[in-house]
C-alpha cells in the first residue's frame, strides 16, 4: 500500500473514548480535505502482539497490500506497562486522481500491560467498527487473550505451523473451530496444491481414479508437518478414507488409510532443502498404475505423470509464489469467506497424528 495521505494522533495515558474520538475526528478531517477520501469498511482486525516483536508484525502486515484490514487494532503488550498509550494512523491508497476513490485505512496501536489484560475487551470494543466482522490474530500465543476477545470476534487467524508441537497445534485449531471460524495459514499454504490435485483428477476419465488411490506422499518444510497432515486430511475427508495413526520412520511419518477395496500408503517426509514454510511436493498413486506428482518449481508447479503403461510426461503449471506476505493477506481476505472443508480435514489430520508427540 502506498500511503499518500497520512494523519497521525497519539496520546499517552489515554482512554478508549479519547482514541475513538480521535479516530472520528481524523476521518472527518481527511474527508473534508478531499471528498474522495473515504474510509474502507470491510473488516476489523485485532492483533495482540508482544511489544518486543511488534516491529516484525508491523512489517508482515505492511506486506499484505490491498488486503490490509480496514481498521487494524494492534495491542502491543509489555507486561510491566502501567499506562495506556495509543497512536492512531490513517493512510490513504492515493489522492483520488482520475475520479477514483482513495480508500482510508485506519491503524490503532494501543500499548498495554498486565494490568490492562483483565479488561481488554472493554478497551477493544469501542475501537472496532460496529457491524463489521472482526478477525482476531495473536501470533505470539497468549491463548487466554484470544479466549477473552472471542466474544467480539467472528474469525480467528492462526498459523498451525508456528506452534512447536503438532498435536497441540491441531488440538488448538480444533478447539477454536468449535467456537469460531478459523482461518489457518497452514491450510492456506496448501490451497494451490489442493486446487491442482482437484484439477488433475477433474477430467471425467480420471475422476474414477479418485476412488482407486493407493498411495499419497507429501514432502514438506521441516516445520510444516501440520500443512502436510492437513493436505492428507483433506483427501481423506473428501474421499471418505478410513484413517489410522501414522508411525514415525526416521524423518518421515508413515501409515495407511483405506478406501473401499484399496489400501492407501501414506508418507509425510521432511524436505530439508525447502527454505519457506509449506509443501515441497505431493505424489498420488492409483491402482491403475497412474503416478502423479506435483513439485514446487521455478515459475509454478512441476507436474509429472506416469501412466499404467509406464509412459512419463512432465510439464509446468504456471503460477507465482504468493510468499509469506501473500499468504497472510489471503488469510485476512478469507476471514470474509467460509471454507466448509477445513474442519473435516482438520479432524482427519488429528486422527492421523502419531501416538507419540511430534514436534512440528
Amino acid at each position: 500500500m502506498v500511503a499518500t495521505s497520512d494523519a497521525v494522533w497519539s496520546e499517552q495515558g489515554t482512554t478508549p473514548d479519547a482514541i475513538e474520538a480521535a479516530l472520528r475526528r481524523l476521518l472527518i478531517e481527511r474527508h473534508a480535505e478531499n471528498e474522495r477520501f473515504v474510509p474502507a469498511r470491510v473488516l476489523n482486525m485485532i492483533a495482540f502482539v508482544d511489544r518486543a516483536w511488534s516491529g516484525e508484525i508491523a512489517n508482515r502486515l505492511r506486506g499484505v497490500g490491498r488486503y490490509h484490514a480496514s481498521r487494524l487494532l494492534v495491542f502491543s503488550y509489555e507486561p510491566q506497562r502501567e499506562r495506556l498509550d495509543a497512536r492512531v494512523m490513517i493512510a490513504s491508497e492515493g489522492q483520488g486522481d482520475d475520479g477514483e476513490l482513495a480508500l482510508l485505512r485506519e491503524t490503532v496501536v494501543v500499548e498495554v500491560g498486565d494490568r490492562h489484560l483483565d479488561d481488554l475487551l472493554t478497551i477493544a470494543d469501542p475501537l472496532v467498527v460496529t457491524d463489521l466482522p472482526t478477525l482476531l490474530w495473536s501470533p505470539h500465543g497468549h491463548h487466554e487473550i484470544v479466549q477473552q476477545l472471542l466474544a467480539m470476534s467472528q474469525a480467528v487467524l492462526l498459523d498451525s505451523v508456528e506452534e512447536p508441537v503438532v498435536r497441540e497445534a491441531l488440538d488448538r485449531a480444533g478447539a477454536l473451530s468449535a467456537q469460531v471460524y478459523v482461518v489457518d495459514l497452514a491450510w492456506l499454504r496448501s490451497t494451490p496444491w489442493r486446487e491442482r490435485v482437484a484439477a488433475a483428477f477433474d477430467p471425467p476419465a480420471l475422476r474414477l481414479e479418485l476412488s482407486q488411490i493407493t498411495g499419497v506422499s507429501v514432502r514438506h518444510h521441516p516445520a510444516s508437518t501440520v500443512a502436510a497432515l492437513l493436505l492428507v486430511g483433506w483427501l481423506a475427508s473428501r474421499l471418505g478414507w478410513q484413517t489410522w495413526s501414522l508411525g514415525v520412520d526416521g524423518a518421515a511419518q508413515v501409515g495407511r488409510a483405506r478406501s473401499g477395496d484399496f489400501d492407501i500408503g501414506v508418507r509425510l517426509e521432511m524436505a530439508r532443502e525447502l527454505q519457506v514454510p509449506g509443501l515441497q511436493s505431493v505424489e498420488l498413486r492409483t491402482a491403475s498404475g497412474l503416478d502423479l506428482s506435483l513439485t514446487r518449481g521455478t515459475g509454478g508447479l512441476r507436474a509429472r505423470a506416469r501412466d499404467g503403461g509406464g509412459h512419463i510426461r512432465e510439464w509446468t503449471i504456471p503460477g507465482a509464489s504468493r510468499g509469506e506476505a501473500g499468504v497472510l493477506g489471503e488469510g485476512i481476505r478469507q476471514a470474509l469467506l467460509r471454507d466448509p472443508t477445513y474442519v473435516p480435514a482438520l479432524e482427519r489430520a488429528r486422527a492421523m497424528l502419531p501416538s507419540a508427540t511430534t514436534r512440528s
Partner: protein
Amino acid sequence: MALAATESENPLTAGLERLPVAPTTLVIFGATGDLARRKLLPALYNLAHEGALPERFHLVGVSRSDKVHEDFRGECEQAIRRFSRRTPDESVLASFLETVKYVGGTFDDPAVYSELAKVLDGFEREAGEPLNRAFYLSTAPQFFPVIVDQLGAGKLNRADPSTHPQVRVIIEKPFGTTLAQARELNQRVLSTFDESQVFRIDHYLGKETVQNMMAFRFANGMFEPLWNRNYIDSVQITAAEEIGIGSRADYYDAAGALRDLIQNHMLQLLCHVAMEPPASFTAEDVRNEKVKVLHAIPQLSAADIPQMAVRAQYGPGHAGGEDVPGYLHEEGVPEDSITETYAALRLEVDNWRWAGVPFYLRTGKRLARKVTEIAVTLKPVPHLAFSQHGSLGVQPNQLVLTLQPNEGVSLRLGAKIPGTRMIIRPVNMEFLYGTAFLSQSPEAYERLITDAMRGDATLFTRNDEVEAQWRICDPIVGTWSQTPGPLAQYEAGSQGPQEADGLLREGDRWRAI
C-alpha cells in the same frame, strides 16, 4: 460431507474458490492485433500468475504475418510487460511463454488450418490425452465467417465423439453491423458449430459491476417489491466518456455511438434492470429472461424515430482544461462524416412489469466526464404534507447504480433541514463497493476467457439475444444512414446536445453528467 467420486462429480472441488478448468489449447486468430496485445495476452498472463490457467494449457497465435514461434513469443512478452495490470513475475512469464506457438498465413488459406491441426495434434500427443480447444476470433469482423468456414472445412469444429474434450469458438464484437448481417453470421457460425459451442463476447458482461447488478436486484429483498411500473417513474442509463475517438477513427467512423455502445452494452444493462428473476443462474435461464425483455421492446418505425432517437456529433470545445477539436477535425475522420458520436434513445418495455415506464439510454464521446450509471427514479409521494416554501423541494427518490468510475449505489432521500421549520431537502445515502471489499476486481477478459474455457456461457450473448438487440437498433441505423447531415452538434466537454431533451417525457430531465 465427503462425496464418492463418480464420473459426474469431483469431490475435491468443494470449498475451492477457483474451480478446475479442463486442459485446453487456446487459439487466438488475430493474435498480433490490438485487442490481443492490450487485453487478451495480459489477461492470460494474469491467469497464469494466479495459477488459474488449466492444468495443461497451450496458446497458439494465428495471424497473417509470417514469423517463427520465438518472434511471436517475444511479441507476447512485450505486450504482457506493457499492458499487464501487474508487474510480471519473470519465472511465471517464462513458464507461460513456453506454452506459446504461432501459425502464420491468411485466414482463408486452408493450409493455415492444416498447420494449425498439426500443432494442436502435437500438443495432444505430448499431453497423452485429447485437450479442449477454444478458438478465439479477435480479428476484424469480416474474417469471422471466413475463419468459421475454414475451421469447419478443416474438421476443427468437432471433437472426437469417443472422447470428452470440447471445441468452442469465442467471437469478439461487433457481431454484425445490421440485423441482416447478424442473422447471416449466426447462420454461418451455426452451420459449423452448435450454439452450445459458441461464446459471443460482450466484455461489459465480464465486469464485476454488471454482475453486481444481478446480486443487487436478486439478493436483496427490499428492492424487488418496488421494481415495477407502480413505483418506478423512469429509468435512465448513461455511458458517457470524456475522451474523443483518439486513433480509432477507422473503426469508430464506420460504427458510431449506437453500434459501439447501445446495441450491445447498454441494451445488456437495460436487460439487467428489467429482467424477471431467473429460476436459476444457469446460462440458459439468465439468457432466456434477458431475451424476453428485448422482445418486449417495440421495434421503432421510421416515423417514430425522430421522437425516440437523437444523434449528434461533438464540435470543438474543452476537455481536461485543454482545447479539443470537433469530431470532423479528428485525424482520419472524413470531413463529411455523418457518424454520430452521441446517441440517445427512449425505449419502452411493453410487459406487465414495465408498461408505461420510459427507459432513456444515452452515450457519447467528449462529454463532461466519464460515468456509466443507471438511475431509477421512483414516483413522487401521493400527497405532500410539507411546505415546499424555502426549500429545494421534495424530490422523488432516485436510486443510482454507478458502474464506473466509483462503483456504488446511491439513494436520494428527502431529509429535514436542521432548524425550527419543517423544510425538506434531498440528501444521498451512499454505498461504495470499493470501500467494502478487500479484493481487486479481475479484468473482464480474465473472467470471460476462464468462463469460455470452462464452458459457462452465462456471461456471453446467445444468438437470439444478439438478433433481438439488432431488431431494436436496426431501424434506427437504417433511418439515420438515409438521412443526410450535417448532424446536430454539441460542444466537446458539455452535457450533450440540447436535442436530447426532446426525447424526455414532460417533467423528466437528464441527470447531470
